[in-house]
């Protein structure tokens, strides 16, 4: 009997353990009236810059904290702390994304009773962070102009899981062959619900608009 070959049905999501943990995080944050934003992008697209610019504009209205994912270094967490905002560093030691258990461990290190909003700076790439739910309420991806408008074709999953697409480095648009209309069309075809903001962390273009939108949805969420 034991040597008989049998087929058994499993029908389970491969990442169900991670997804269950992410749901627990979301529930816990909801109970504590905290809103969490997961920022994903390629290396150099401007994740740290966007977070710092957003912190500066929102720190008077909200109590903020940042979880910094980094493969080895701690430079990004140091930049955030220099802004006077609590930051926890997760060093993944080579792993290319953050997952829900890592975020749980990082949240435990923050004084959550004094926080309204947490930013997660995910590891820089457009593949794995799309696969692993971190428990965040809002998924934000950044695409910078020098990367090109064809990234929707190469990394479609990232565009389907994101609620917001931030086009950064708009100051590089002049003289480039980046076509904003084409990018908007491609992104909306794949994800009609995606909100698109065009910004430049360097010149400040579009940052107030992005921050007012973010503040509005955060207030709605944590005060409801």
């Amino acid at each position, binding site marked *: 009997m034991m040597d008989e*070959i049998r087929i*058994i049905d*499993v029908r389970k999501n491969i990442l169900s353990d991670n997804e269950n943990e992410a749901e627990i995080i979301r529930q816990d944050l909801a109970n504590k009236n905290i809103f969490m934003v997961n920022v994903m992008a390629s290396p150099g697209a401007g994740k740290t810059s966007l977070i710092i610019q957003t912190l500066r504009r929102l720190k008077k209205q909200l109590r903020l904290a940042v979880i910094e994912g980094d493969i080895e270094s701690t430079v990004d967490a140091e930049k955030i702390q220099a802004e006077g905002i609590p930051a926890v560093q997760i060093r993944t030691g080579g*792993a290319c994304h953050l997952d829900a258990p890592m975020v749980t461990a990082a949240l435990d290190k923050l004084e959550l009773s004094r926080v309204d909003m947490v930013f997660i700076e995910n590891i820089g790439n457009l593949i794995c962070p799309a696969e692993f739910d971190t428990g965040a309420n809002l998924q934000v991806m950044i695409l910078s102009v020098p990367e090109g408008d064809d990234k929707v074709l190469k990394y479609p999953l990232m565009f389907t899981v994101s609620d917001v697409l931030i086009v950064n480095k708009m100051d590089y648009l002049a003289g480039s062959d980046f076509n904003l209309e084409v990018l908007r069309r491609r992104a909306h075809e794949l994800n009609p619900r995606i909100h698109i903001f065009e910004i430049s962390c360097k010149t400040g273009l579009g940052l107030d608009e992005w921050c007012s939108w973010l503040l509005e949805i955060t207030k709605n969420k944590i005060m409801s």
Partner: protein
Amino acid sequence: MHELAVTKSILKLALEHTHQNHGECVISIFLIIGEMRNLEQDWIQRYFDYISKETAAEGAVINVKKVPVIFLCKSCEKQFTTNLKEDKKILCPHCSSFEYDLVSGREFIVEKLEIK
């Protein structure tokens, strides 16, 4: 690294379900993976062979059934597929509508196991 993290989850699920069903070892694992997932069968198998050594799943063969990207048109309610890697406008081939929902292509499932 991406495939490695995923492969660890596959191994964990395979061992749990084999144990629950009083099996001794895993012969093959059947996955259903949407075209939108960036996973290659060869790499999953290679990582799996490495991490499953000295477990009940050592030597198991991974089979992948790929699921195409399918949209459901909100206007005519017909389904259609498209190649996302090609740069062309996505619209319903039946009624030319731009209003549709993604219904498949993101699957990531351990469907069944062959055990003894």
